[in-house]
């Protein structure tokens, strides 16, 4: 943690709430990006990132100054994204509200052409990430996209370094296969 951040944290804890904005401003974009890659859609990403900032403010006293503030806030984000995913998985689905009374199920879904177009507009990276499990995706994003050290990634994800290494190995293998399937010339190039 740099000295500037340390000062800002102390100011917030001393009661100067306005110091919170300059503290989190450097992570404004990266928080939302990471949330988007984890959740897969913008609506959930904004919700997770907002909740992260609010929790970071509320529980700022629990922050340990020897840790990187960025890694600490990323850890909160991972938990929020997990919570959101769990809530969505447990949410009951009402057929009536989804389709409307008397309407056939297929009439409410996207047309086959629209689905194809949506898949095309999705980023290449997001397509590759769909090959990973939720756990592998978290670890891959933290280590290879956000470039957190393995020990920090383990702390942020609440797991051991060994578990991070094992999942990271698997994730990289799946990503390699997905990338080579899309860009076969990469495999040719290394020979």
């Amino acid at each position, binding site marked *: 943690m740099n000295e500037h951040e340390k000062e800002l944290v102390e100011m*917030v*804890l001393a009661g100067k*709430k*306005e110091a*919170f*904005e300059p503290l989190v401003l450097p992570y*404004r*974009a990266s928080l*939302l*990006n990471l949330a*988007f890659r984890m959740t897969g859609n*913008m609506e959930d990403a*904004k919700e997770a990132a*907002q909740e992260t*900032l*609010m929790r970071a*403010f*509320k*529980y*700022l*006293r*629990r922050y340990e100054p020897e840790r990187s503030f960025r890694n600490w806030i990323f850890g909160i984000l991972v938990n929020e994204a997990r919570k959101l995913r769990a809530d969505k998985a447990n949410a009951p689905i009402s057929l009536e509200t989804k389709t409307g009374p008397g309407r056939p199920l297929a009439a409410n879904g996207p047309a086959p052409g629209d689905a194809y177009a949506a898949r095309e507009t999705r*980023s*290449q*990276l997001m397509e*590759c990430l769909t090959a990973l499990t939720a756990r592998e995706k978290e670890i891959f994003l933290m*280590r*290879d*996209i956000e470039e957190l050290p*393995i020990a920090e990634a383990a702390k942020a994800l609440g797991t051991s370094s060994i578990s991070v*290494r094992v999942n*990271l*190995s698997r994730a*990289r*293998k799946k*990503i*390699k296969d997905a*990338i*080579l399937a899309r*860009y076969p010339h*990469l*495999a040719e*190039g*290394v*020979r």
Partner: protein
Amino acid sequence: MNCRRIRRSIPLLAGNDLSEQKARRLRVHLERCEMCRNEFGQYTAALNKVKELADRETLPEWTNTEWRALMARTISARVEKRPFVSSVFWNRPLLPLVRGLVVAVPAVVIGLILWNTVMKPKSNPIGPAPVYVHKLEPTPPTTAPTRQNMNADKEPEVRSPERPVLFAQAPKAERPAPRPNEPTAAQEEGSQDVVSVTLVSQDTGLKVVWFLDKNFEWKGEGK
């Protein structure tokens, strides 16, 4: 190292996540093995491509209005106060001591319990022989046997069937005269003059009753 083991470590080598020593051993192998070298090249190329895609990716951002509204909402909340328990142990140097006590105290208690359980002297599993003490009703003095008359008179004693030998009473006449310091009969009213002790053999079931006076002088026995 064989190729199979090497290939398990290649994904981590491609991201520089191996120790220096292990990475050096793997690189030595890669120089000699073309298959593993190709595998490593594919991983490196794929990871570079992912980073390139991530950099090129255009992601939506918060608008300034959204950001300002979010910040206003965030700082309108209150920062959590330090809980009492954590404030007691907030002083970091005390933490190892507290953790040590948390482990040591239950260990000592468990140790003491085990020590008492193991080292306690084992009692006789059968238990002591039962001793029954009966308070006897006063009876005429002639019914109580004494050592003298039992030895002198060998003839079998005639007992009435409805009065078992168990209920014998030392004769009041035989009581020695009270000394000046001894309590008088009136003072002793309510205390018993003769006690009987019943001994039962656990093996044979044989039961013997001894009669004793208040000075624990043996007065006789019954069955």
